[in-house]
């Protein structure tokens, strides 16, 4: 039964993989690894806008971070302070704190500022990743108004061991090394993965604020990150399975000033992260019980030597989840349970108070698969924060198949985001948190048409969403800043994705095209806002984005080229013609060759970023590098009987 469950999980993931490289042959060894304790929550949305980042894609991004992956692949929009700087995802015109990042189902976002910094997430320690855009993620709780990203760890339940190590060197003093070992049998499997990356990050950029425009080198932008991820998964009985994981990480980032400053800055930030989780899954005949317990700790030390400013922040989250998933009959599946989260913090600017927040949520969902032609699901979630209710978050989703190759789906959901602890408790520097803030509330609806035939797969989605009581820090009174529920934002638009795959003997071609249009405007401005912002596109939110990707594989050789376009963005909130970030189109390429020898394989990869040396910024004052290079060598070994 457990094996069956694992297989079902994988099948579901594959079904949702609308961008998967179906039929592709990876140029690297890909073991069929699974997780045997995965939560079923994410399956209670019919036909989600789900994008599985397959092992091939992840292997190409093995030497980078989640920020690098998004920057190069054009998945949604990212708000970035440049390489090594804070990088946060933003889907469908939402804000940078409206996308959750989940590690094996546990939200790892900072309760202090609600941000998920993708530059602090090394990709090589994860075996699968996926992203889901849109608000059809209400079961994920606070913060997933725009969508969420899943990062999962799996292992290979085969008798034997495998080992892998990569070393990479790149432009701007970038060095990377990692090593992993996996050992397993049919009942227990575990892995240890260590990663270390360092970059001087001193790339050249064209400073057009100078006369004449001057090629300058980025200074005070070095970073380093060291991570260790360990996991064990075990089948205790034919009904019970457990997983234990730990992810510890240490990083130091120098924080450069904006390029409009003449001095490079003297601030740095160190992060010490510890994330630990335990999962247990029990399979009864028609029911599964899944629990997960997690402890998330983070210590963040900010030090600006120029301004003699030091901020020492610690925050911890204790998470306890319980879900019961039952198959009522062959066509009806239900899920229910509770999420508990205790957030504690100790922040210099919170004063002597060490605020904590008790959050408990109850959820319920049902999925109806009455026929091949119709599917329907609904969910409901209610969270109590320190005993106070938050907006009820329901969702409904349905699917209607016209024929075997064409179907329609629709979703509607209500979502919310709690104020962060900084929003509530920050005090100092002329700013003050606001304990009276209300949660942001989002409503979203979407309808999709999907066409799959042969090697062609496409989906077009029209979406509409409202985010009300959006929290903004604004001048409050004459002399201080304070967060307030300032505005209502209306986002609407379309998304398209098409994939095409074709094999020619030993060669194969895989292509992906994506386009999104997000018109995201202020619908209402409440007190203390600027009414000139009404009906204006949100700051630094492009209306149009598209990306193209092509990959050719032949006999262990792979060539992959992608280009992504980001439309112009307004750098102010009332869309003046004076503050516009120009559009840009960035092209990257990878080439890799896989050499196999008995139980060993060697993968040699060469990567060129920003091939055409485009000078561009995603955020003014924080330029991105021109053409850059990276070469990586990966050695894999396994002695699996079926490897």
């Amino acid at each position, binding site marked *: 039964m457990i094996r069956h469950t694992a297989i079902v999980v994988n099948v579901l993931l594959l079904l949702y993989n609308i961008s998967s490289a179906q039929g592709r042959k990876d140029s690297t060894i890909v073991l069929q690894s699974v997780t045997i304790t995965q939560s079923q929550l994410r399956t209670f949305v019919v036909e989600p806008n789900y994008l599985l980042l397959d092992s091939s894609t992840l292997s190409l991004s093995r030497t980078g971070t989640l920020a690098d992956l998004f920057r190069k692949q054009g998945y949604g929009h990212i708000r970035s302070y440049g390489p090594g700087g804070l990088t946060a995802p933003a889907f469908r015109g939402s804000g940078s704190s409206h996308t959750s990042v989940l590690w094996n189902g546990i939200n790892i976002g900072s309760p202090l500022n609600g941000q998920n910094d993708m530059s602090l997430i090394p990709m090589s320690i994860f075996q699968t990743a996926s992203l889901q855009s849109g608000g059809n993620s209400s079961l994920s709780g606070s913060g997933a108004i725009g969508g969420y990203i899943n990062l999962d760890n799996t292992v290979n339940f085969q008798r034997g061991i495998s080992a892998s190590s990569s070393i990479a060197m790149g432009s701007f003093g970038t060095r990377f090394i990692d090593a992993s070992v996996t050992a397993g049998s049919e009942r227990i499997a575990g892995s240890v993965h260590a990663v270390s990356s360092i970059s001087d990050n001193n790339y050249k950029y064209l400073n057009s604020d100078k006369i004449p425009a001057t090629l300058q080198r980025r200074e005070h932008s070095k970073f380093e990150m060291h991570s260790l991820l360990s996991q064990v998964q075990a089948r205790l009985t034919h009904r019970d399975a457990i997983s234990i994981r730990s992810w510890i990480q240490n990083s130091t980032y120098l924080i450069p000033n904006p390029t409009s400053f*003449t001095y490079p800055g003297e601030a740095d930030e160190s992060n010490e992260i510890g994330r630990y989780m335990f999962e247990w899954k029990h399979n009864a005949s028609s029911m599964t019980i899944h629990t997960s317990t997690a402890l998330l700790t983070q210590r963040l030390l900010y030090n600006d030597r120029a301004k003699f400013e030091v901020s020492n922040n610690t925050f911890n989250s204790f998470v306890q989840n319980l879900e019961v998933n039952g198959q009522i009959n062959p066509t009806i599946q239900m899920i229910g349970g509770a999420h508990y989260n205790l957030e504690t913090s100790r922040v210099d600017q919170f004063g002597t108070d060490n605020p904590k927040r008790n959050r408990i949520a109850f959820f319920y969902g049902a999925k109806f698969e009455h026929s091949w032609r119709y599917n329907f699901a609904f969910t409901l979630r209610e969270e109590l924060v320190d005993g106070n209710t938050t907006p009820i978050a329901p969702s409904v989703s349905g699917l209607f198949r016209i024929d075997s190759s064409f179907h329609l789906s629709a979703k509607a959901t209500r979502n919310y985001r709690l104020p962060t602890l900084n929003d509530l408790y920050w005090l100092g520097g002329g700013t003050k948190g606001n304990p009276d803030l209300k949660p942001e509330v989002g409503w979203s609806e979407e309808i999709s048409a999907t066409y799959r035939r042969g090697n062609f797969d496409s989906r077009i989605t029209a979406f509409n969403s409202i985010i009300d009581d959006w929290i903004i820090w604004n001048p409050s009174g004459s002399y201080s800043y304070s967060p307030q529920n300032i505005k209502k934002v209306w986002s609407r638009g379309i998304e398209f994705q098409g994939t095409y795959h074709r094999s020619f003997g030993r060669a194969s071609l895989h292509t992906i095209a994506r386009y999104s249009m997000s018109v995201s405007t202020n619908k209402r401005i409440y007190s203390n806002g600027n009414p000139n912002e009404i009906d204006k596109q949100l700051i630094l939110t492009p209306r149009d984005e598209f990306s193209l990707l092509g990959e050719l594989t032949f006999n262990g050789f792979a060539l992959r080229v992608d280009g992504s376009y980001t439309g112009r963005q307004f750098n102010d909130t009332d869309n003046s013609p004076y503050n516009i970030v120009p559009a840009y189109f960035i092209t990257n390429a990878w080439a890799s060759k896989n050499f196999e020898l008995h139980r060993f394989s060697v993968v040699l990869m060469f990567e060129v970023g920003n091939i055409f040396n485009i000078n561009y910024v995603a955020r003014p004052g924080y330029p991105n590098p021109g053409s850059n290079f990276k070469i990586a060598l990966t050695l894999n070994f396994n002695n699996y009987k079926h490897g």
Partner: protein
Amino acid sequence: MAKLSKVFFLRYLAISFLFLVACNDDDNIGNKPGTEGFYVVNEGGFGNGNSSISFFDKQTNQVVNDVFKFVNYRSLGDQSQSMTVFNDKGYIVVQGSGKVEVINTTDNKSIATIEDGIESPRYFVGASNSKGFVSDWGIDGVSGTVKVLDLNTNTVVKSIPVGKGPNRMMLNDDLLYVANGGGYDYDNTVVVININSEDVVFTYTVGDNPNSIQMDNTGAIWVASSGRTVYNEDYSVNEEESTTGSLSKIVGGAEVLRLTAPELGGLGSLDRSPDSKTLYFLYLDGIYTITMSATQFPTKAFVTKPYYGIAVNPSDGMIIGCLAPNFSSAGSIEILDENGVSQGNYTVGIGPNGCAFK
């Protein structure tokens, strides 16, 4: 706190210090500055490099925005703090970018960019055809200096240590008065520099964190100080050690009067009427005013509105109030007559904080 949040709050921190912005007027008395119109300094959002200069044309009663970028094809930089028109040139002090942009006020084209030797500049005063002065906080915000500029070569030729956070300056004959506003720390002095010897010749002690200076029609020097807010360890306000803003009156080399504001909260942007008989300044809820003979702090605002900066047009006495609803969208200016009655409202750039009169 993660990086974005830190930048976010640093911006607030910086803005809180920058809040006591004074609108600099033009010291070219006699040229009727402000007759043609005036520039508006829009400091922009911290770190966004989107500061700008607008120009209000008095003949057409219209504002043209972003005049620097329009003719020079590049951004002005980060956080323009002030601008002064001197000898038909505009000296735009761009604090975040650590530079002074020099433009021709006839066509707004760039003449020079003064960067070397300048770190965190605040205000400019022209002394002669060949000499000017720039107050400079220093990179750390506390190692304040006044830079001596050669206006022929547009270079820094000398750096004079003055105190913490030198802010607005005032030239009277051969003496340059510099208000040490504290920068990222605290100060309570006004230093006097002899512009010929380029040395500090006298130091006055005034209220905490002085930020702007004016001279009235009697020759008395008035200094606006923002006061000092001290926080306890838990970041609550330490009421005992904190001080309210004040106005100091200096006559004959001594402080003869100090009018102390009743409540904590910045006080600044001190300016004067064309006849120098009335002083205007910002405090708490709006514009306050006093006459030269005042002996008590005014009890209520002259105009109640949360202006970010003010300036008085030397040519007609109109008061220009700068409104910055936030630092991510366009602000506006409101022109008030001498009775405080609005004569018009005009959209300008992001974060308008003051004016320079042409």
